[in-house]
């Protein structure tokens, strides 16, 4: 029911978001064709190309057409490389998905551990870490963390490769999902898995800082609420051990806020992915998208942005639904 009620809202959100993206890209000054044609332009050829691409039509016409093409999966070609946008998408998106998933898992793991142990109150300094980590993680620039990780992890310690997603000399695993770690496991190639993992560590740590910080601070403040503190005291007085309190009770209680954070920080994660991808030479969608916007590669930029916004909306929506189900106070199924 909750799901059904949200659908019209979801559709309206999509409509306004896609229109806003279209308008924003359309409003960037400069004719994309003329700018693509280099430093010397032949006006006649520019006019021909604009007509071929349908750029000479009115904007409502172009908006409707662009939506039809987007939904039909016909995302056009990049003006600068001539490659199909969908081909590029399937090449770069898995790299970002893989990185974001690893970062998200790592971030949740670290964030939750800090918050839970802090909430138990056995080590008072952890509480300060938990409340401090939020602001630090949100304030320290991600590229600075990235460079720091590179200098320490690659240059000084020499433990990790200096950026990139895979070894230039090694043979990549067969592309099934495009997630190298998964593909290597599917192929049973432990060598490739280890190479991919080695490349993943630093960028994943870098990108995990933000989700770790938000999960830690949100969960910690939820657990600080007086009734929950009373609950912990009650459990302790019943003689339950730390492990049981953590696993049986607190983890369950923190699931709600954590999922909300995942839902809401997903967009921020994509933003962070661009910076991480730049510092670590990671061939992902964030870098591809920003380059497309700077190069006035309008079709690429528009379709990718629309897709990413759709993705962010869906993730936020799904996490909302899950939270409703999980939290009895908000009228879920339990």
């Amino acid at each position, binding site marked *: 029911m909750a799901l059904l009620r949200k659908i019209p809202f979801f559709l309206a959100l999509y409509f306004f978001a896609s229109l806003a993206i279209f308008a924003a890209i359309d409003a960037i000054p400069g004719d994309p064709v003329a700018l693509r044609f280099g430093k010397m332009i032949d006006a006649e050829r520019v006019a021909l190309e604009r007509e071929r691409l349908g750029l000479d039509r009115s904007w409502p016409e172009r908006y409707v057409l662009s939506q039809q093409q987007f939904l039909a999966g016909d995302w056009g070609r990049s003006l600068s490389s001539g490659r199909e946008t969908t081909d590029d998408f399937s090449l770069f998106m898995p790299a970002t998905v893989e990185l974001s998933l690893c970062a998200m898992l790592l971030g949740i793991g670290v964030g939750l551990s800090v918050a839970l142990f802090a909430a138990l109150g056995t080590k008072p300094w952890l509480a300060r870490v938990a409340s401090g980590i939020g602001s630090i993680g949100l304030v320290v620039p991600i590229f600075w963390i990235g460079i720091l990780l590179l200098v320490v992890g690659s240059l000084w310690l020499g433990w990790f490769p*200096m950026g990139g997603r895979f070894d230039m000399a090694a043979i990549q695993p067969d592309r099934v999902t495009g997630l190298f770690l998964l593909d290597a496991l599917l192929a049973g190639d432990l060598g490739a898995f280890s190479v991919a993992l080695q490349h993943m560590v630093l960028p994943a740590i870098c990108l995990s800082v933000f989700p770790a910080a938000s999960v830690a601070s949100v969960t910690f403040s939820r657990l600080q609420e007086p009734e929950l503190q009373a609950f912990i005291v009650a459990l302790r007085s019943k003689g339950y051990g730390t492990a049981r309190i953590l696993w049986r009770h607190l983890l369950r209680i923190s699931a709600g806020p954590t999922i909300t954070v995942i839902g809401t920080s997903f967009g921020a994660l994509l933003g962070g992915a661009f910076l991480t991808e730049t510092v670590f030479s990671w061939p992902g969608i964030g870098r591809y998208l920003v380059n497309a916007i700077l190069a006035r590669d309008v079709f690429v930029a528009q379709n990718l942005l629309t897709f990413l916004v759709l993705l962010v909306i869906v993730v936020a929506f799904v996490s909302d639904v899950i939270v409703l189900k999980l939290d009895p106070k908000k009228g879920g199924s339990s």
Partner: protein
Amino acid sequence: MMKSLPILCLILLSLVLSACGSKSESPQEAPKVFIFARGSDAHKLDPADIDDGESVNTLTQICEGLVRFKSGTLEIEPWLAESYSISEDGLIYDFKIREGVLFHDGVKLDAEAAAYSFLRQMDPEHPAHLPEAAFSYWSYLYQDIVAVEAVAPMDLQIRLSKPNAAMLRSLAIFPAWIISPKALDTYGSAMQRHPVGTGPYRFKEWRPNEAIILDRNPDYWAEAPAFERLILKVVPDNTTRLLQLKSGTVHGMDGLQPTEVTALRGDPSVTVYEEAGLNVGYMAFNLEMERMAIHDLRQAIALAIDKQSFAMVALEGTGRPASYPLPKGFLGYPDVEDAMIVDLEQARTLAAPYKSLFEQNPLEITVMNAPRPYLPDPVTAATFVKGQIEAIGIPAKVKSVDFKTHLDLLRNGEFEVGLIGWVGDNGDTDNFLSVFFGSWAAVKGTATNYSFYRNDEMDELLLTARQTVDSAERGRLYERALALWKRDLPLLPLCHGNNIVALSSQFEGFTLQKIGDLRLSEVRVK
């Protein structure tokens, strides 16, 4: 349950560490592969349809032209043509094609095959005249070519409609490089991403936004490259790129920032190659704007800007101040460099009557926010210029936008003063002066004459010079054109930025090329 957590962590950690143990990429031990890092990826790999440096520098390793620049100079030497001759009237170019040259796909190079790369650009009906390709250089540098014909199996003839003194040089640069006539059959329109040339390296694989991988051409007709493989790696972040060079992960890089160059100069593990580039950074005055149409104001600004200090601030020593709107040593470049006078007193006097024009509305200086070869730090440069203009009593402000927006504003004349520059294509004077001052280049939307300067005498001089084959006579025409520029001052040249490449010092044999292309096949291990 709690006890299993640390164990799980340990397993993961050991996995990661074991992964680190199995280092497979160690360039120091593998000099068979040369890795060069740069900030962005190539756009396309079709010599007839590119204009970005990364694409050109990738194709430099793969493709060659009938003629080329002798290494490190602007002199022409025959290359895929064994020899050439030009008719006395300058209208017919005959090339004797070199015997025994094979394309990377095994096709033999002959006159017919060489003609293909020209015909596909000039003939809209040609099967390889791809609709999505811009061929923008053809209409710009090669418009005087009317016919390209194989007159004998190894004899290629190019005929012009009128003499063009820059043509031979234009034939040495990338739009005139020769690709295999079979590429279209093999790859269809994907030939733009799968180059087949005759050069020292052949294309192997393109991992977009990651690397382009090239293998040594075993059948190369000239001196073979020292490395089995050449990897052109994309490392977008400047700091990361430099870290990679210092750690030996890559062997060479470009896109160095001036501060990094200063830091690297004393580093024995890295050799910095640095030379004045064929470019000029300048300030365009939009003559169609009321205030900039006032000659005295332009003169005042020119007298106010101290170019020596400008070069120190904007280029941090990685370039030099510019007297004239073309690089030193070019045909027509005056012997006396008297265009760098600073006279604040006179500047203030000239500007004084017009101060009231700026009271409500300061002078707007538009600039791009990303580095270019002629201005590595454009915003700092603009801020410096603003300060100098304000010193003569004209309030000014800086408006910085991204490069594409900046170009669009300039091409459409929607600016007052613009900081911009030009990177020469073929090393010819015409390629600077016609671009800046020809009235045919002052068309809104497609302009390169961003000052929108129109002068019949200038047009006449430029067109005559282009068609004058006698070099001394041509030089005199350009001197007169420069005198006109100095009188009218539609733009103010500021600086020439250096071409900069850094290689790990275990290598030698590399020479910076004047037009900036990277001949990495000349690199050897010391």
